[in-house]
């Protein structure tokens, strides 16, 4: 699977305005809805589910990145987006450091294999120092999309 198969380019938020976790989740879910990847009417429910997921265990897995994700019946097709915060957001991360890059992933309820494949490709890239650094430095949507294209070409 490739990043560009589920990351919705039009929903990428290069400069998140939210300063706290819950608002950031809402901002990114709304961006997905505005891009047509999620029904607008489902945003509230999906955000609630994402927050609940974070409360059960932070998806801030360290190194300045968080990967909030949820499987939800209102999600018909896997969809993801990326948000950047220059100031950093407190995600109660495992390493207690602020989060600068958020990969949000929404999956339908009945496709656990596809969900794991998408998580696999996201984390395979996030493991690479150079990918994390470039992502953190990419301040425009175009730059982020270019980075995703490059990552997809170099597995």
């Amino acid at each position, binding site marked *: 699977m490739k990043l560009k198969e589920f990351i919705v380019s039009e929903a990428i938020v290069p400069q998140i305005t939210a300063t706290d976790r819950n608002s950031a989740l809402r901002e990114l879910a709304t961006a997905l809805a505005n891009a047509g990847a999620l029904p607008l009417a489902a945003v509230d429910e999906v955000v609630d589910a994402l927050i609940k997921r974070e409360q059960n265990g932070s998806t801030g897995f360290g190194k300045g990145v968080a990967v909030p994700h949820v499987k939800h019946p209102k999600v018909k097709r896997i969809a993801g987006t990326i948000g950047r915060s220059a100031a950093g957001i407190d995600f109660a991360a495992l390493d207690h450091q602020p989060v600068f890059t958020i990969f949000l992933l929404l999956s339908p309820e009945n496709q656990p294999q596809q969900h*794991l494949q998408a998580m696999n490709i996201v984390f395979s890239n996030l493991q690479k120092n150079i990918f994390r650094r470039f992502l953190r430095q990419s301040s425009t949507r175009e730059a982020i999309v270019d980075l995703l294209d490059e990552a997809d070409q170099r597995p």
Partner: protein
Amino acid sequence: MPTASRDIIVSNSLGLHARPAMQFVDTANQFRSKVTVSKGGDEPYQADGKSVMQMIILAATEGTSLKIHAVGEDAEIAVEKLAKLFEDKFGEE
């Protein structure tokens, strides 16, 4: 240095997603042994059993065969406890 290993099969229907991956890492961290989890097949990968990111990269779906390997004084008990998590399906279905 003592070593221990065990072959297991992922049997919970959602596979090794983030929550069980974290549960595994939490348990692995209770031991001093170095723990690795490897997957064979078409996309072989060896994950550090104490790294959540690497455990998620395994993308181990239901039915995937994995090998848990530990090296250290407490290798035997570590492998036993970690294999038990899979046997118990991480408390899932």
